């Protein structure tokens, strides 16, 4: 199996906000040398607490932030992203059809009919009836919105999906449905998914491999069962304990 993503020794730092113009502008290191790879068809979990650099790492992979040093190598097409809050990630003024067709309009030469066919197909794969094409996000429930987001992320046939806490804003029963959907899609489309979460139970259910991140460093990574049964790093143990997974 080939690598779909390689991240090599990525460093990112930000300038600290100044309170007065006389303050010295200090740099804060957010990512301190991150290296990992994701293979084709693999679901990798990235866990860590807020402020550990998870979201910054996602932005680096998407190319929204340029790293200070290190490199990100994509094995195929551009990755797509599923955001945490389905209430802010869908444009409230647009219909589902517009949202789904937007990437095709900007990046391909498909005709209007071809776009519609594709939008219907992806919406169906995300488990929504095509009647929702004419709906606006405000007419959908949280779970339905997240399905639209998933369909949107699939429009350009990406090989890699980044999912930033995609289920943490959802109710537990809806959460289970969305996790199942991601799992099914991974299988049927051969996707790779980088699944960012703070919920270790959710990660266990979905992922093949897990990386534990703290203060901009990956402190531990490995097969999910190995890490959960036999955590090596103190911080991993602490997280597993807090989630009630180990005593």
């Amino acid at each position, binding site marked *: 199996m080939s690598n779909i993503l390689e991240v090599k020794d990525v460093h990112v730092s930000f300038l600290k906000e100044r309170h007065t113009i006389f303050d010295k502008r200090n740099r804060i290191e957010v990512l301190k040398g991150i290296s990992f790879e994701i293979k084709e068809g693999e679901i990798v979990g990235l866990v860590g607490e807020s402020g550990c650099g998870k979201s910054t790492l996602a932005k680096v992979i998407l190319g929204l932030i340029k790293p200070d040093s290190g490199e990100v190598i994509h094995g195929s097409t551009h990755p797509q992203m599923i955001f945490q809050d389905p209430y802010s990630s869908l444009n409230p003024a647009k219909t589902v059809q517009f949202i789904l067709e937007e990437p095709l309009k900007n990046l391909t030469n498909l005709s209007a009919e071809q776009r519609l066919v594709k939008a219907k197909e992806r919406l169906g794969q995300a488990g929504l009836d095509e009647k929702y094409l004419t709906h606006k996000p405000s007419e959908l429930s949280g779970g339905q919105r997240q399905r639209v987001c998933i369909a949107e992320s699939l429009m350009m046939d990406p090989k890699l999906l980044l999912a930033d806490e995609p289920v943490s804003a959802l109710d537990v029963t809806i959460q*289970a449905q969305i996790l199942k959907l991601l799992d099914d899609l991974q299988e049927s489309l051969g996707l790779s998914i980088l699944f960012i979460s*703070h919920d270790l139970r959710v990660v266990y259910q979905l992922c093949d491999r897990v990386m534990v991140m703290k203060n901009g460093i990956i402190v531990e990574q490995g097969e999910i069962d190995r890490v959960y049964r036999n955590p090596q790093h103190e911080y991993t143990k602490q997280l597993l304990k*807090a989630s009630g997974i180990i005593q």
Partner: protein
Amino acid sequence: MLLHVEDLNIEFHDHIVPETVVYDFDLDMEEGEIVGLVGESGSGKSMSALAIAGLLSRHDAKKRGQILFEGTDILGCPRETLRGLQGDEISMVFQEPMTSLNPVKKIGWQVEEAMRIHTKATPEERKRRALEVLSHVDLDDPERVYNSYPHQLSGGMRQRVMIAAAMINTPKLLIADEPTTALDVTVQAEIVKLLKHINKKHNTAILFISHDLSLVRQLCGRVLVMKGGYVVESGNTEEIFNNPKEDYTKHLIDSIPKVNLDE
């Protein structure tokens, strides 16, 4: 009996068609008891809690039934009586520690507020008490926290401050509405531990509202499961977990991601 709720119905009138959000809600709580209230968004759990705390304004919600707190009728009593209870005998902790503290006031001032309203304590007494409760919620260096503004604290610290503020008059009932939802998992565990400790030390009854069943299981002896405004099942937490009677409860429990390492 600390709290007796009978036949509580809540109806909203802000749309043309009145909308009922809570139906026939019954709840009895003894002093020092921890009761969990579980359900998904829109199930009516927060509405019920707000009504018990006397925080549902009279204009947009119509309430029927009875809420007796130590014999005082929360729904029918005059505004002054209610104000006398709130922050003194009943207090509440909310979900968002970011928005439930006033950003332009120092922590000390906010923690003391309930004491300023309900007691005749001198400023020195108030400060001593505030520092005391701040240290009780396991905040290191309470003096520094006392003089800080909310934005200088982390989410977990802010939620501790909220709990400290709620506990300053040692209330008999603490209502916690999803107090850990916005927090990281390690901080969540600490807050749950803290609530347990408070319950044991001051014999404060806690009504713990959450959508997270595993947390409820850790904390509460008794649980009410709500769906669509109705209480569908209630009883001993372990019994419900091991032997749920209603389909919805089963579904809810099955939806918790399982981690089984022993196979």
